[in-house]
């Protein structure tokens, strides 16, 4: 078996750059070759994607502004657009 160019320990550090399309061509190929031979890193990638998907499901930011802050901003909008 050929020794792949990157190992798992490097895979986990470069995977975001790969997902972001920021790797150079040869780095990208090395990472993709590693994925082909390594079920564990494939699982790792699945978990990363799953966590991104879970965050996407959360969808909204945490607490909204306090009602009077929100009201004050809306009033500002009304006032300014009228002017």
């Amino acid at each position, binding site marked *: 078996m050929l020794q792949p160019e990157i*190992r798992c320990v490097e895979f986990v550090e470069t995977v975001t750059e790969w997902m972001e399309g920021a790797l150079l061509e040869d780095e990208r190929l090395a990472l993709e070759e590693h994925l082909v031979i390594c079920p564990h890193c494939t*699982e790792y990638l699945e978990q*990363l994607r799953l966590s991104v998907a879970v*965050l996407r499901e959360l969808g909204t930011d945490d607490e909204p502004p306090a009602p009077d802050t929100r009201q004050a901003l809306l009033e500002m909008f009304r006032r300014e657009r009228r002017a």
Partner: protein
Amino acid sequence: MDSQIDDGAPAETSDIDPGERALVAALRAGDEGAFAQLIDRYYTTMIRVARMHVATREAAEDVVQETFLGVIKGIDRFEERSSLRTWMFRILVNRAKTRGEREARTRPFSSVAGELDADERSVDPERFLASGRWSGFWAAPPSTQHCPEARVLASEAGARVAAAIDALPPAQRTVITMRDVQGCTSEEVCAALDISEANQRVLLHRARSKTRAFLEQYLDERTGVH
């Protein structure tokens, strides 16, 4: 290597989505509902971004209010060469930095730079083999299990995941919230935090790595692996 320019100039590309174009039109027409939408969607993130530059929650609230005022006053002149979000966050970061400088604080740099400088590993080094032919390969790989769907996990453990995100260092928390929770582009995040594409990726990487680790632990508990 890094082809993205981040010199504060408007972005060259214009791939404004139709929903956003409608939102801009509604804001120009004085549609209060459209403005309310903007508040509800971005207020908390804007506070969070502002807090990276100013000392107090009160100061951050002022900065956010000034930003919304800037948006209202400037919307007619907004050229749609960048997304509405990018534009809005540029206004925000400019005001927040001015305010922060007036307060004579250097928080943004110390906080973002501090997070970037820290030497962090994405996975506990002990989980890789330390010697032999397979050194650097998994010793304790992530366990393969039948993964539930994201939707199921979100309803089951959404609050715990949100708490894990909240516990991240400020810059990482802001980046992952904007990118993965709100679906902002990297360009928008760079504009908001006034950081380079490369640094944005480092922060995103660290935040996602930690979130994955949290999720892995949750999945293991769920299936009784440990």
